[in-house]
């Protein structure tokens, strides 16, 4: 019976929907008594952080009612970040500290206030030091939680353009004949010397 109890425990844990006794027995080896195993299992979980509960005519493991307050984090809804936000974030990560004007220059379109606000709210970017240029514009930099979220130790570990190309993230086309603008220089620097390893 201990073995049958283990089986019921594993099935209830791993199944997305509540499971009926009949279904439990259909999945367990022939001759098992799911109903009896459930009685033991239910007893075992009495007073624990999770409970074996009856839902209609099926069974499920659920959080103990008094611990519901711990579950607030489980109710989050995840949405994909918009393309504008991803691009803005990418530019900040690769070029930080970077001003809003610089972001707009690289993206070629203006950056909406909502996009920056959203990234600030997510705590993926924060304000950096002001630039020592006319108007002393604020800059943006990425945060520790950005690094945590994307599994990076350092923003410098982001692969350069050449590496992106080698990884198949870019169409592999011949580089343009000329290198327009200072941005390209910066990119070249990061990829310098790696061409050897990553060119195919």
């Amino acid at each position, binding site marked *: 019976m201990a073995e049958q109890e283990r089986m019921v425990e*594993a099935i209830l*844990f*791993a*199944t*997305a*929907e509540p499971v009926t006794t009949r279904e439990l027995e259909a999945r367990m080896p022939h001759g098992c008594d799911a109903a009896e195993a459930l009685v033991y299992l239910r007893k075992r979980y009495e007073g624990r952080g999770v409970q074996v509960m009856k839902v209609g005519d099926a069974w*499920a*493991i*659920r*959080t103990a009612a008094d611990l*519901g307050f711990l*579950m*607030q984090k*489980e*109710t*989050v*809804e*995840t*949405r*994909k*970040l918009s*393309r504008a*936000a*991803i*691009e803005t*974030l*990418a*530019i900040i*990560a*690769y070029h930080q500290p970077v001003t809003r004007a610089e972001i707009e220059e*690289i*993206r*070629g379109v203006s950056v909406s206030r909502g996009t920056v606000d*959203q990234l600030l709210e*997510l705590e993926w970017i924060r304000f950096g030091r002001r630039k020592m240029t006319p108007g002393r514009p604020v800059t943006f930099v990425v945060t520790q939680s950005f690094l945590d979220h*994307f*599994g*990076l130790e350092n923003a410098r570990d*982001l*692969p350069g*353009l050449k590496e*992106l*190309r080698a990884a198949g*993230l*870019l*169409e592999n*086309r011949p*580089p*343009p*004949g*000329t290198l*327009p603008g200072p*941005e390209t220089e910066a*990119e070249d620097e990061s990829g310098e010397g790696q061409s050897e390893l990553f060119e195919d």
Partner: protein
Amino acid sequence: MAEDTFEEDRISVADRLAAEALIVDVDGFEGPLDLLLTLSRTQKVDLRKISVLQLAHQYLAFVEKAKQLRLELAADYLVMAAWLAFLKSRLLLPPDPTEEGPSGEELAAHLAFQLERLQAMRDAAARLMARDQLGRDFFARGQSEMVTRVRKVTYSATLLDLMQGYARIRTRDEFRPFVMDRDAVFTMEQALDRMRGLIGFAGDWTDILSYLPEGWEMDPAKRRSATAATFAASLELVKEGHLEIRQSETFAPIQLRKRDEHRDRST
């Protein structure tokens, strides 16, 4: 060469047949190191005790056979063959004290190490894949969203999203439609301006290439553009009567000189 024959004899017929059977399967190998590892198994000894010399023989025999069968081997297989032939000669000939670089034994030991390491990684990979795996042998919680009390929206993005986003922006220039890259183009107007200033000094026949603007000679794209523009500008100046142009034969250098009123009258 006597040793050579001796070595040949040491490879049993069965081994040679086995090696030849591999030929058919040449596509099944992941590079020369993989092939060497497979060949080394025919020696039926611990990889640490492997005879690299014998292995070199087996490999060279393999490549020879492939050539006979007119199978195309990838370049890296041939590079390995050349290296093994070199290694073989180092191992067979008495060491030449004047020769620089590592000894045959050192090279052989390193190859043996590489083979052993590759085999070890293969074994490790097999052991890793034989482990119980999540979603196959053991399982995560099936019902993860239990309480729906607070609805909070979070936004997610993966590192791939981020890198692709960046790549998209930074390569936009590479496929913008129909915009001329002016940086590598020397226009005829520019060439005309330049030539007008220079022809005053072109008393005698000079190669047109010496009129190319500075800094445009090295890069092939720039050089092409500057040459074309300079040539077109020269023709224009000939038409205007300021220049003379000649070419002694096809593909010979094109030469320019200033048109001289005096000279014209005298001839």
